[in-house]
């Protein structure tokens, strides 16, 4: 029997989970249909603020459900999540409810949605990887260290380890302060020439905004930490030299069977 093929996204999820597990991160998941509270408000994205426009959102028509008489704005799912960050809030909230204080370390991977036109580099549904580390002394330097190790393990090939450079640039996200844009560079003779020594934009990160901790019930005077969110599709495109993001959802074995 000829063995079937694992989708490259699943392959990266498998590998990423292993890397983060080894660094003490638990894998957590959350719903794809989400309330505005968990997707925006709790993450310090104010209503009527230009920041809300940064992520074009798919809103759902209300569900007619006779059985559900309780309308709770906090829990009423009204949109397709625009990032995996809803998992951060849900996780911290549930830990606090259980009486468990930080340290917290979680990684979350799953589908997210943006209401925009698609092309070779943009899809309206794609996968995101997100990590959150909260403790009394988690720093921005730990974020750099964590990312360096993650990239190194993901982008090293069997014929040789890649040396990884991680660079931060200033940025803005409502849910982090300071906020940074993360660039990565692969150095080493085993790195494909197309990628070697080039800075590539990977995604956003930063130190969790105190309001996000407060909104989840965590004492922001005592605890701090980092979070980042990157596109898994983009990581896969870099890792395997894939030129079109739309192949990920193409269900085309001409693509999948190469992996």
């Amino acid at each position, binding site marked *: 029997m000829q063995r079937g093929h694992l989708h490259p996204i699943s392959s990266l999820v498998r590998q990423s989970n292993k890397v983060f597990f080894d660094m003490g991160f638990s894998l957590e998941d959350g719903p794809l*249909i989400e309330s505005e509270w968990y997707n925006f408000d709790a993450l310090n994205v104010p209503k*009527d603020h230009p920041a809300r426009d940064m992520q074009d959102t798919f*809103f759902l028509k209300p569900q007619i459900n006779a059985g559900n008489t309780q309308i709770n704005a906090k829990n009423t799912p009204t949109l397709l999540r625009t990032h995996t960050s809803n998992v951060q809030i849900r996780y911290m909230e549930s830990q606090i409810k259980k009486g468990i204080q930080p340290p917290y370390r979680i990684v979350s991977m799953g589908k997210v949605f943006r209401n925009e036109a698609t092309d070779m580099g943009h899809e309206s549904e794609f996968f995101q990887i997100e990590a959150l580390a909260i403790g009394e*002394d988690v720093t921005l*330097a730990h974020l750099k260290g964590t990312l360096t190790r993650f990239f190194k393990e993901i982008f090293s090939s069997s014929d040789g380890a890649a040396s990884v450079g991680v660079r931060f640039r200033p940025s803005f996200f409502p849910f982090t302060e300071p906020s940074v844009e993360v660039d990565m560079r692969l150095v080493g003779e085993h790195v494909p020439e197309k990628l070697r020594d080039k800075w590539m934009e990977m995604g956003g990160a930063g130190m969790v905004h105190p309001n996000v901790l407060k909104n989840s019930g965590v004492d922001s005077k005592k605890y701090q930490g980092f979070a980042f969110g990157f596109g898994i599709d983009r990581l896969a495109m870099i890792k395997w030299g894939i030129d079109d993001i739309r192949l990920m959802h193409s269900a085309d074995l001409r693509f999948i069977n190469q992996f």
Partner: protein
Amino acid sequence: MKVSVKWLQTFFSAEGGSASGGRASLPDAQALADALTFHAFEIESTIESTAQIGHAVSNFVLDVKVTPNRGHDCLSHRGIAKEISAILNIPMKNDPLALRFNLNSTLRFNLNVSIENPRLCSRYIAGYIRGVKVGPSPDWLRESLESIGQKSINNIVDAANYIMFNIGQPLHAFDAEKLVSKDEQYSIIIRNARKPSFAKASAGEGEKMVSLDGKEYALTDSMLVIADGERVLGVAGVKGGKAAEVNEATTDIIIESANFDGASVRKTAQALKLRTDASQRFEQSLSPELAAYGMRAVADMIVQLAGGELVGFVDEYPVPQEKKELSISLQKINSVLGTNFTQSQVEDVFNRLGLPHTCDEASPHRIFKVEVPFERLDLEIPEDITEEIARIEGYDKIPVADLPSLKDAPDINENFYQTEKIREELMQKGYSEVYTSIFAEKGERVVANKVDGVRPYLRSNLSEGLAEALQKNVRNKDLLGLKEVKLFEIGTVWKGGKESTVVGMAIETKQGGKITEAALNPIKSDHYDDFPIPDDVRYRPFSKFPFIVRDIALWTAAGTKPEEILELIRKESGSLLVRSELFDTFSAKGGSASGGENRPRISYAFRLVLQSFEKTLTDEEANAVMENVYKEVKKRGWEPR
């Protein structure tokens, strides 16, 4: 925002800009772009432009992507200059926001300003200038505006625009004589547009405004307007109207420098589909203090360019902006960043950014008290100060550190544990994994605002997506070299009022396909299985054009290796061959040309898949490839059947 390098230079030259006055030269455009990129904002482009007014002037224009938190102060040349000054440690010689002045006027003029709702308009300053001469702008002003893509209109309008792009305060000029006055008393009212029932115009319709460019806008009562006693003169913070337009005949003007609520302006601009340079700035929320600087600067510039007499100002400012101070300790800054910055390094950043500060040296934590300048509305909490230190010092100063290990091992995710097990089981049975879209033709939940409008529902099953995927892949079976197509997907569906993850399997059958779907039940485990991570591969782009399949069967002498034949076939069929394999073998006695009577011989059949990267292959092109292959195999004594 488009930023002219030449314009930036004006902040680094002493008043008047003369060479003798002292002048700090900025580095070249690329160095400025790098400085901003690594310490402030992304640069979308750096373009060299040459303006041709009288003499050729070479300049560079940076397209700076100002982040939403800095729209308060950085949608202006002054804001960007201030950033450059801090980053490169080049002091500004001329900072318009450092000027001291007042708007108290000794002369009075007959204008009454009333703000109906101070929450939507926190300040309104009107300035009155009599006897101006409207005309073309001087070359330097036209060049400045044109360098950032703005059109020069006349000296009054250009002065207002220049000050907006210079310090970020939107301004507007009205022709005073066009305002309706009562007993020689002018009035300006900032109010919501009137509801249809109160409209004086025509029954059933709300107020309207004809803009400067002649378009008519229907207004609703949620929109803030500037009105005289009767008519709407402008939509607050968005656009001015035709009613009081400044033109060549204008002699007396009223200038507006005001502060409008960001959310309100944003909603109005969206509703009217009218985003202007003014609305973009108000949307980000501006400091009401800035309005005074805007008024002072524009009034002075107009008198200088167009003459006339500055009669005075009316300043309605019910609740002045409070002064803000933030406290943060050196220890806190370093504990968030993971750095070892010293007190003097931090103080140096404060000085460069123009943040007045004190440090409590008696405290072991070195607590800084920082005065927030009025325009820096983004500096709200101590963490914002930490960010200022980090970005001005540079993120390259952040060390790389490993997280310490934790006492407890991470949890095992039951859902993931189970889906990984299923993946492995199905792959062993020959199934390949696909992901299909969650959007469908029908389902229980529907998206209200899908951009492309197609497939607005959320799927209630995986089957439909898998059926489509199966059909598509069966067509490519020969190209893929598969005997049968088998697919699986693990994905989310919305059914029975809830969201759940299911597994779907699709297998090709003679009738078409068989698709099954099953729910998942999490399994408890204290560890993850160590499933393989596929070896390194490089993705190879594939042709999207149709392929052609040709079979070739050959009699050969016993003992001939099929690999030997395949090698020849591959060599002779050239670049169009994308797959080739042996698919049938049989031996026979009895003979023909291949080796005489009764010698054992063997027949091999090969399948060749031909495809072009450039176009749809024709039969003739496939035939040509095959003829060449036939010719070459015959030369080797292999006999086509």
